[in-house]
């Protein structure tokens, strides 16, 4: 049976991170999932507005959530930033009337956080199951030592994101095992790469990146996976380029035998 979910690709997946999107769609199809792209989504802004009096910066997420509510009530995201922003705005709409009232009045809708926001990885874990993925792998990535780079936005604040244990996450390592490779755990996998200062302060970004990459290398990782286009850009651009960094969906497509499809 085909599962159908609304899908929010986000700005970067249409441009610089096309691979993240393309391999996600191909893999979903191979796993019996239909990802139905929202018809009229707008960029989420890539930064969750933390101040309570920031309303306009939340509206694009509210529109996407409201559209998804009318089409089955589950919204799948893929980019870490989109997932972070949309998940937290959804919570605001459910729990913070001072924000929800203003957003609803402005958009002339009545939305209160009912949509379930799933990250592609949580969709794999909770709706498909890593054991099922394992059984569908035709090209196990045997012998590859892969470090999961979680970064910040998927995990924190854990009380709001509910993604995984924020200090000792396992979902990406379980994913790596499911596609037949060997996960390498390293301390800096859930510390920030400095992506937000990649534009304005390259010196700081380089320091943050080398802390992550040196640590991954010293722990035995030979390649890294990420879900975040900004992490991928920053780790490549401001690192020494010795460690290959790819989107996790590319390896999934490779393992499922749909990479060239």
């Amino acid at each position: 049976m085909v599962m159908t979910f609304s899908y929010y690709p986000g700005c970067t997946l249409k441009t610089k991170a096309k691979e993240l999107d393309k391999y996600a769609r191909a893999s979903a199809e191979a796993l019996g999932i239909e990802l139905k792209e929202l018809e009229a989504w707008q960029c989420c802004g890539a930064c969750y507005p933390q101040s309570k009096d920031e309303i306009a910066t939340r509206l694009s997420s509210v529109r996407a959530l409201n559209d998804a509510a009318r089409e089955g009530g589950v919204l799948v995201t893929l980019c870490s930033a989109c997932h972070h922003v949309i998940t937290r705005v959804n919570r605001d709409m459910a729990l913070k009337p001072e924000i929800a009232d203003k957003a609803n009045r402005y958009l002339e809708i009545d939305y209160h956080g009912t949509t379930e926001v799933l990250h592609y990885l949580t969709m794999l874990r909770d709706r498909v199951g890593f054991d099922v993925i394992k059984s569908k792998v035709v090209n196990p990535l045997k012998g590859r030592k892969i470090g999961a780079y979680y970064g910040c936005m998927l995990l924190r604040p854990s009380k709001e994101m509910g993604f995984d244990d924020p200090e000792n996450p396992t979902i990406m390592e379980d994913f790596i095992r499911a596609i037949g490779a060997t996960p390498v755990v390293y301390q800096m996998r859930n510390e920030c790469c400095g992506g937000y200062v990649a534009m304005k302060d390259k010196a700081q970004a380089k320091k943050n990146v080398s802390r992550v990459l040196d640590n991954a290398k010293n722990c035995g990782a030979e390649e890294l996976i990420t879900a975040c286009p900004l992490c991928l850009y920053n780790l490549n651009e401001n690192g020494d380029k010795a460690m290959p960094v790819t989107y996790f969906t590319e390896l999934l497509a490779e393992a499922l035998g749909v990479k060239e499809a």
Partner: protein
Amino acid sequence: MHNNSDKQKDQVFRMTGVDTRKCMKCGKCSASCPSFNEMQYRPHQFVDMVTKGRIEELMASPSIYHCLSCFACVERCPRGVEPAVVVEAIRNLAERKQGGTYFSPDEVPELIDGTVPQQALVSAFRKYRK
């Protein structure tokens, strides 16, 4: 009568909902901060200076632009003080002032090199101007 520093404190409280007096000065926020070495005022100092009403000094410090919004301090604070939320409110206050923008569209052409993801530009605009 409120003086200006009290007004600013009230404003920060309205924006964040954070009671900075809950801080017990354990230092976990600054210990976790990936920008610690880059900051004039560290996360624990932001919290303390807000309690003391020293908000103008924070608004004038480049430290407001070094926070990466990685939420390590928010996650690890045992008292739920949420230093990153406080830093952002102060950055917002600085950016909402006339001429307070830290990132201008004029800077973009020079940054574009064919690899910069949209996300980097969008988030820089969101973070650094109002």
